[in-house]
C-alpha cells in the first residue's frame, strides 16, 4: 500500500482520496483553506439539477474516513529524491495535484467597469447574493434588470486566455433561472458569443430557461459599460446576429468569469519540473489515454489543474486519477 499526498482538497481531490482510501492506501489531503470543498464548497446551487453544492461536498466527505486531512496547509513546493516525494515534511510515494483554478480577475477587462462602477459584479458575487437571498444593487434595491456577460476572461486573445472555460454558459443559464424564479419582476439578459451547453441536461436547461423562465439571450459582444447618473449601467454591445451596435441599460451587470490556473500551480511546476501548456494549465502525458499522468513519474493530476471542468467532470477525473 502506498503513501499518497493529495494537494488540493476540492471536489477532484476529495473524490480521488475517497477511492484511494477504499483501496487501502495511506492518503493525506493538504488544503490551503480552512475547510475542504474548494470552490464548490462555497457555492449555492449548481447545475444541471440545481442542487445545493454543499450536498455534493458532504457526500464526498463521507468517503474520507481514515484520510488524514491537513487544512490551512498551502503547499508551495515538493521535493523529489529517487522515486519518493516530500511534501511539507511528509513522505509520499505518489503526489496528486488537484490544485484547481482561480476565477479570472475581471479588473483586467477594465472596459466592463468591474471594480470601477458600483453595480458591476462577477459571477461568484452573484452566487453569494443568491445564497443570501439578497439580490440587490449597491444602494439596496432589487434590480429591475440584470445583464449576464458570457466569456469574461475566456476565449479572449486580449487577456491571453484563448480557451473556453466550459462552465460559465451553463452557470449563466442556471443563474438566470434562479433570478427569474426568485425575482419574477427582474428581467435577465444574457450576452453570449455561443452557448456551449454541452453536458447531459445542460441543453435542456438552456431551453427551459427561455421557455419557462423567460431569460433573454442576445448573441452579442459587450464593447463597454458606462455608469449613468442613477448608477445603472449603459451597455454598448454589438448584436452579432443583426451585425449592428445597440445600447441597453441594466441595473446590475454580472461578469461570468472564466477559470485560470491556481496561483500555487506555478511554484509546484518549478519545484517538480512539470510541464504546462500555452493555456498555463498542466500538460498531461497523453490527452486521450493518460490524461491524469504528468511528465514526472509518480506525480498525477486531477480536476481543473489540467483545464476547466464542470463539477461532475472534476469528480470523475479525480476518481480516474485514483484508479
Amino acid at each position, binding site marked *: 500500500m502506498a503513501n499518497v499526498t493529495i494537494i488540493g482538497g476540492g471536489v477532484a481531490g476529495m473524490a480521488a482520496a475517497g477511492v484511494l482510501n477504499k483501496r487501502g492506501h495511506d492518503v493525506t489531503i493538504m488544503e490551503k483553506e480552512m475547510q475542504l470543498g474548494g470552490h464548490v464548497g462555497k457555492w449555492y446551487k449548481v447545475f444541471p439539477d440545481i442542487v445545493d453544492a454543499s450536498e455534493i461536498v458532504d457526500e464526498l466527505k463521507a468517503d474520507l474516513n481514515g484520510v488524514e486531512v491537513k487544512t490551512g496547509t498551502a503547499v508551495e513546493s515538493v521535493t523529489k529524491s529517487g522515486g519518493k516525494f516530500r511534501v511539507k515534511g511528509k513522505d509520499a510515494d505518489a503526489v496528486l495535484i488537484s490544485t484547481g483554478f482561480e476565477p479570472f480577475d475581471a479588473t483586467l477587462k477594465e472596459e466592463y467597469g468591474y471594480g470601477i462602477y458600483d453595480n458591476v459584479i462577477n459571477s461568484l458575487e452573484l452566487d453569494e447574493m443568491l445564497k443570501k437571498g439578497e439580490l440587490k444593487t449597491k444602494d439596496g434595491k432589487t434590480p429591475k434588470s440584470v445583464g449576464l456577460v458570457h466569456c469574461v476572461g475566456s476565449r479572449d486573445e486580449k487577456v491571453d486566455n484563448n480557451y473556453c472555460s466550459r462552465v460559465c454558459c451553463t452557470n449563466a443559464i442556471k443563474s438566470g433561472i434562479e433570478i427569474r424564479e426568485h425575482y419574477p419582476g427582474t428581467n435577465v439578459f444574457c450576452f453570449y458569443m455561443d452557448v456551449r451547453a454541452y453536458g447531459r441536461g445542460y441543453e435542456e436547461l438552456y431551453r427551459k430557461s427561455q421557455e419557462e423562465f423567460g431569460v433573454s439571450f442576445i448573441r452579442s459582444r459587450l464593447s463597454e459599460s458606462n455608469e449613468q447618473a442613477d448608477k445603472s449601467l*449603459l451597455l454598448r454591445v454589438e448584436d452579432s446576429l443583426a451585425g449592428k451596435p445597440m445600447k441597453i441599460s441594466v441595473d446590475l451587470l454580472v461578469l461570468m468569469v472564466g477559470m485560470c490556473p491556481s496561483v500555487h500551480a506555478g511554484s509546484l511546476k518549478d519545484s517538480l519540473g512539470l510541464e504546462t501548456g500555452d493555456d498555463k494549465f498542466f500538460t498531461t502525458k497523453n490527452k486521450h489515454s493518460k490524461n491524469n499522468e504528468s511528465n514526472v513519474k509518480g506525480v498525477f493530476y486531477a480536476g481543473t489543474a489540467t483545464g476547466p471542468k464542470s463539477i461532475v467532470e472534476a469528480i470523475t477525473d479525480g476518481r480516474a486519477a485514483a484508479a
Partner: protein
Amino acid sequence: MPKVSGGRPSVVHASDVIYANIKKIAKKAKYSLDGIKATDHLGCHYAKIFPDESIGGGEFPQLLAGMIEAYGGEIVDYPERRHCCGMGFRQCAFPENRGYTAACVYKKMKSLKKTDPDCKLIITNCPGCGVFLDAEQGTIAQVMGEKFDVHIVDYAQLAGLMLGYDPFKDCGFNVKVVPIEPLLDKIGIEYDKSKTPEERRRPFGPE
C-alpha cells in the same frame, strides 16, 4: 512617459510633456480648478490607437483626468465620455455629412448634462475635438435652439489659464463659440469687464 523599447522610436504627444511636468506646473499655477467639475475628451489618435503607449491605457486614460486633478478639479464620468467628437474627415469635410458631426456632439452634450448638469468643462488634447465640440454647440443652438454652454478647453489653454496668461491675448479664447467668461468668473480669473465681449475678442495682431 512612453519608453523606448524594442528599437522603436520614442514618440510622445505634446500633452504627455505637460503631463510629465504637471506637478511643477500646478505648483506654479496662479489659479486652481478647486470646486469645479470637469471631464476629459481624449483624441482618438492618442489612446484609442496607442493604448499601450498612452498614460493610463485605452479605457481610462489618465492624461487629461490627471491634469484636471492636479489643478484641483473634480472629474465627472458620463456614459458618452468615450464617444466620438464627430470630427472625422468623412463627416466634417463633406457638407452633406455634417449633420453627423453635430449629432455626435449633441449626443455627448445631452449625456453629460443628464449625468451632471454642473459639469461645464471638457478638456481636450486634439485640435479637431477642440474645434468641433465647441463649434457644433453653436450649430445645435441655431438648429435645435438648445444651449449647453460647455467650455471646451485644450490642455495647453488650460495650463495657460492656470498659470495666469491672458485668456484672450495669449490663450486663444477669442475664437471660441461658447463664451469663456462664465468659466473665468467661476475660476476667479480677472479680465477687463469695462470692455464689451467683442472688444475683448478683437484679434491680437501686431500693433
